[in-house]
């Protein structure tokens, strides 16, 4: 296998692993906070529906965490297996957050184990709730540290290059790179947003499929509210990300927005297709790109013309940008509408149409996560470490990557199907109504003693 093939298959395998992992990782980062919220509301309102909600979510969460953990282990090792030259170089500067991530994860793993097995140990529910704090903190910090590594790949700093050698290495400076604040904030807030909308979608689906239980209504309303908060936060952070890109990675912004010539008062191009270098059927919003990039409608935005051809990212990332932004905006509008409608007690809020939209919101949010990652990862091409090492230089020289692609594709298929089957069976065989009846019976038995 020539180097070109090894590079191609290494990219394919990494893409596959990350795309699969990110679904479970996103849920893994966001759901602990949702469980915490539900349990907190339950204690506060003394409403056992919310307590049961926390309990059921925690049960499903374990399955997704398991797949998240094992695929996370896979990508951790694949970094060295597929990109040995990159890890050899970057490891000298950015190993610290990778190392810290394992601690964060360790912390989360220990307390998740304790939390799951101590539902009935504490008289005081609040103590049990406290055990979730380290789980949520650990999950969040894992995301923070890993995203710092990714940010470093986009905006490397904290070292000097002298004759191909790294000198004056400063691990903390490398962590505090300019891409870090917006990237970390974006990843965490989208994880919370997506988790909320996925849980809302599940509740809405139950309501559509025959159950009319107030439990599901409570779940949907709570999660849409949380989703609204974080989708608005995501939009604001997205605006800051645009400003970061304009300053530090103008080629990525230019490729994503099809901004070919450097110009001031730049319009934002939404949708459209590229036909022989011509943009067709696009919506142009005047001045919007200048505002996104610099908060100034007349500011100059650097175009792709400023970069040599072999350093320009592929132009198809524009489509990923479209998908991500469209879904994000749709979710802001949908959740804002639903919350207002519920508050004003409009009947329309409970219509099947709105519920179906909420159901769609779950998978759509996950698609937006995928599109966002593809945009940022493909948008960094041809670099693996921007300005320092290209993807071609980083890849393994091993000749067996193609077979590994097949092996891992099968693995992810097995894990994907397995987790869906198990989750469905878990909740099908034990619907909310049944569990609430059981809780009621237990309580009565307790009282009559």
């Amino acid at each position, binding site marked *: 296998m020539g180097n070109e093939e090894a590079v191609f298959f290494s990219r394919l395998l990494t893409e596959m692993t990350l795309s699969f992992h990110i679904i479970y990782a996103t849920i893994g980062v966001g759901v602990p906070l949702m469980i915490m919220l539900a349990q907190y509301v339950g204690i506060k309102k003394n409403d056992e529906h919310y307590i049961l909600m926390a309990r059921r979510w925690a049960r499903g969460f374990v399955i997704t965490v398991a797949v998240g953990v094992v695929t996370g282990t896979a990508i951790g090792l694949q970094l060295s297996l597929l990109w040995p030259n990159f890890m050899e170089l970057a490891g000298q500067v950015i190993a610290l957050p990778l190392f810290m991530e394992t601690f964060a994860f360790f*912390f989360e793993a220990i307390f998740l184990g304790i939390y799951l097995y101590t539902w009935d140990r504490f008289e005081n529910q609040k103590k049990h709730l406290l055990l979730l704090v380290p789980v949520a903190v650990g999950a969040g910090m894992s995301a923070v540290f890993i995203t710092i590594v990714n940010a470093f790949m986009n905006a490397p700093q904290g070292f000097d290059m002298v004759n191909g050698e790294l000198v004056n290495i400063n691990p903390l400076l490398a962590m505090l790179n300019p891409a870090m604040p917006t990237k970390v904030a974006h990843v965490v807030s989208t994880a919370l947003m997506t988790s909320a909308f996925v849980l809302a979608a599940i509740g809405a689906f139950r309501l559509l499929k025959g159950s009319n239980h107030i439990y599901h209504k409570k779940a949907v309303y709570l999660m849409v509210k949380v989703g609204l908060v974080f989708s608005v936060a995501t939009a604001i952070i997205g605006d800051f990300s645009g400003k970061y890109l304009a300053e530090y990675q103008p080629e990525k912004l230019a490729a994503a927005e099809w901004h070919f010539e450097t110009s001031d008062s730049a319009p934002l191009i939404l949708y459209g297709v590229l036909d022989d270098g011509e943009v067709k059927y696009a919506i142009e919003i005047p001045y919007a790109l200048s505002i996104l990039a610099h908060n100034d409608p007349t500011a100059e935005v650097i175009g792709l013309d400023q970069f040599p051809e072999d350093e320009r990212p592929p132009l198809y990332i524009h489509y990923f940008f479209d998908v991500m932004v469209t879904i994000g905006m749709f979710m802001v509008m949908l959740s804002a509408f639903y919350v207002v409608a519920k508050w004003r007690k409009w009947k329309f809020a409970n219509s099947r149409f709105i519920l179906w939209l909420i159901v769609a919101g779950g998978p759509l949010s996950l698609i937006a996560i995928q599109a966002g990652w593809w945009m940022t990862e493909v948008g960094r091409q041809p670099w693996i470490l921007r300005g320092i090492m290209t993807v071609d230089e980083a890849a393994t020289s091993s000749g067996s990557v193609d077979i590994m692609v097949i092996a891992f594709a099968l693995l992810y298929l097995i894990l994907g199907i397995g987790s869906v089957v198990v989750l469905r069976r878990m909740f099908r065989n034990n619907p909310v109504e049944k569990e609430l009846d059981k809780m009621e019976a237990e309580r009565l038995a307790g009282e009559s003693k």
Partner: protein
Amino acid sequence: MTLTLEIIGITVLWFFLFGYVIVASIDFGSGFFNAYSLLTNRQHILTKIIQRYLSPVWEVTNVFLVFFFVGIIGFFPKTAFYYGTTLLVPASIAIILLAIRGSYYAFETYGSRGHKGYSFMYGVAGLLIPASLSVVLTISEGGFIDMIDGQPVLDYQELFLSPLTWSIVVLAISATLYISAVFLTWYANKAKDGEATKLLRKYALIWSLPTMITATGIIVELRAHNPEHYANILDVWWAFLISGLLFIGTVYLLWTKRSYGFAFLLLVGQFFVAFFAYGWSHRPYLLYPYLTIYDSFTNEAMAIALIIAFIAGLGLLLPSLYLLLRLFLFNKEYVVGKKEDNHA
């Protein structure tokens, strides 16, 4: 011999790898015994005991391994080049097994309790993991990697035909079952489950022998395969002698059905001494003859940052681990099964 950053780094990592060897052996061995008892319709004896132990700790086990490989890239980034390039296939196999084992364990435990297919899947995958991971130790002895055009290439034929490879594989599997069985004997005894204790004690005694024979055999094989390493092993012969005595102690206690807790402690001591004596004699090579801990070491700034992060991390971890063990492993009521701590 001064205490250099290199030595501190590799010692820390070696500690975690040792931790992984013990915890993961218990874990994988338990999974296998569980599957085996399902298959031979003896699950009524073992499954309950095994699952009481396994359930709250499975995720923690995996972190030990992640910690080791992330740490080794951090402290010794050149390992990424040599091991990363050559281990693509063996390490990928290990990852796939780990993935199946971890997720199917969760599927069975939290999704479909008692599902035979799932139990079988994770039981077998678990046993193959030590085998596939142990190949890395074999490769580290040198003789299996050629440098071609400046790139390290693994010689599969050499690797598969070498008796050393297979001895290490057998050692990995039998040690896994031995460690696990000794631990579970103690655990079952603590849970006052006579029948399970009896069966597990039998397993422990069965697996003690192949463990010791292959371990000795490997040292003999090294004499021809890697004379330099062999000579270094002979330098610390006393450590291996201590390890052997500890082994005899464990087997004696098991045989005479006395103090299973102390027997397990001796076993940990046996593996600890042997593991560190092996590591010590392997020094300074990470990979014979290409890579030593000195020429692959990261820069000083990163090393110090990692060590500080490590100390801070331990400050957080040790109390949490203590809490976990206190709540489950050392909680009498939990072990005996009085506490009805069903998950979520």
